[in-house]
Each structure stands twice: as structure tokens, then as C-alpha cells.
């Protein structure tokens, strides 16, 4: 599969995750969000950027439980809970936010 952005074709796997992480740009994130029917507002960018930083440091996309805890620590308790994260990403913060961030599916996500 592939998505078209600015005349360029970007390869994705059968579930829509980027094949090559280094292809990622903010423009691609917007396109990936659109395919998930999500509007990229400030709170969503915050989570996506957090995931990218996490991946950069540890080279894995964290499981939802780990993401929730880590967000709570970094961005505050009011954001580090599943209700908040599922409101932003109704089909799963791990799954959807990781896809938009250009990361693979979280380890431990089935």
C-alpha cells in the first residue's frame, strides 16, 4: 500500500503504518490522521510528539499502559489517564497515535 503526498508516494503496510520511519513529516502525519478521521489539534500533536521522542530514546512504541503512565508524568495527571487519551484517539491511543507518529504498532499490541 501507499499514500500520496505532494506527488510523492509513501509506502505503508497493510494496516497503514509507515514502512520506513524516516519518511515521516508533519505533512504525512496530517494525511495519516485524515485516514483515521482525526483532526490534528494541539492535544493530539502533544501525544504524537511525545511518542516520537519516546521512540527516539528507547526505539520502541510503548504499550498503552506505559504510554498512559509516562504521559501522566511528563504532561500532568489530568492527561495521563485512559479517558483523556481515548477521547483523543478513540480507536486506541497506542494504535492510532503511533500510526500518525510514523511508528510501528506498539510492542504488546495485538
Amino acid at each position: 500500500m501507499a499514500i500520496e503526498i505532494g506527488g510523492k508516494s509513501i509506502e505503508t503496510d497493510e494496516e497503514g503504518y509507515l514502512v520506513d520511519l524516516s519518511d515521516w513529516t508533519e505533512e504525512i502525519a496530517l494525511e495519516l490522521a485524515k485516514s483515521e478521521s482525526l483532526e490534528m489539534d494541539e492535544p493530539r500533536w502533544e501525544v504524537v510528539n511525545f511518542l516520537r521522542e519516546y521512540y527516539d530514546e528507547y526505539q520502541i512504541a510503548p504499550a498503552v499502559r506505559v504510554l498512559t503512565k509516562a504521559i501522566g508524568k511528563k504532561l500532568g495527571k489530568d492527561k495521563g489517564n485512559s479517558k483523556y487519551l481515548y477521547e483523543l484517539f478513540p480507536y486506541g491511543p497506542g494504535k492510532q497515535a503511533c500510526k500518525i507518529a510514523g511508528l510501528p504498532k506498539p510492542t504488546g499490541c495485538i
Partner: protein
Amino acid sequence: MSEVKKFLYVNRRAPYGTIYAWESLEVILIGAAFDQDVTLAFVDDGVFQLVKDHDTAGIGMKNFTPTYGALGDYDINKIYVEKESLEARGLTIDDLQHLIWEDEDEDWAEKDSIKVVTSSELAKLMGQQDVVLSF
């Protein structure tokens, strides 16, 4: 909630050359994500997995070892390294990554995750597990 089992993952092989070390780490993270009680042991050449600052450029492989730093986030804080294996390879705990976990009950105080144990202590630990997986 189903019953929580005690899982011990025994890592015996050098980090590169085979896929065992990386596969083990993935399985460990998945097990922890499912709320199992996870303990790790590093013995024989497995102790090299935890050595800090791997430079893998020469063998054209990705250095996956930064991922060990995420173990604390997964609440994995029982990491045992066999003393005899370290000594036989001229290593000490200072050659290993400093792995920590944060204790939520103590205002996120950082605590060490790695403990060096003798092979007889490790044998005792193995006896206390429900499941032992060797990689």
C-alpha cells in the same frame, strides 16, 4: 482477571549473531504489557546484552539495547545478573547500563533494577518461578 504467573526469562546468548536477545526482549515487553510478574536473568554471554554503549556499525546491525532503558516503564525491576558470568568476562556492574525504575509509591523515586547475584542465588530464584523461558 486471570491469575498472574511468575515468569523468568533467562538470557544466555551474546546480543548479536543470533536473534535470541532481541526476540527475548520483545517477548518480555509483551509479557509485561499483559501484567505478568516478570523477572529477568542474564547469564553466560547473555551478560553482554546489558553492556552499555554498544557500537554496532561494524556489523551492520541496529543497536537495540536502548530499549532495555524502557524496562522500568513496563514495571520490570527484577533484573538479575550472574556474578560468575560477569567475572569470567572481566566485567563489573559498572560496565552495564544503569537501569532504573521509578517507585510511584515513593514520589517516583529512582531505584536500581539490576542486582548481581551468585549462581546459587540464581538457582534458588529459578525454583520460585511458574514459568522459566530460556533464550
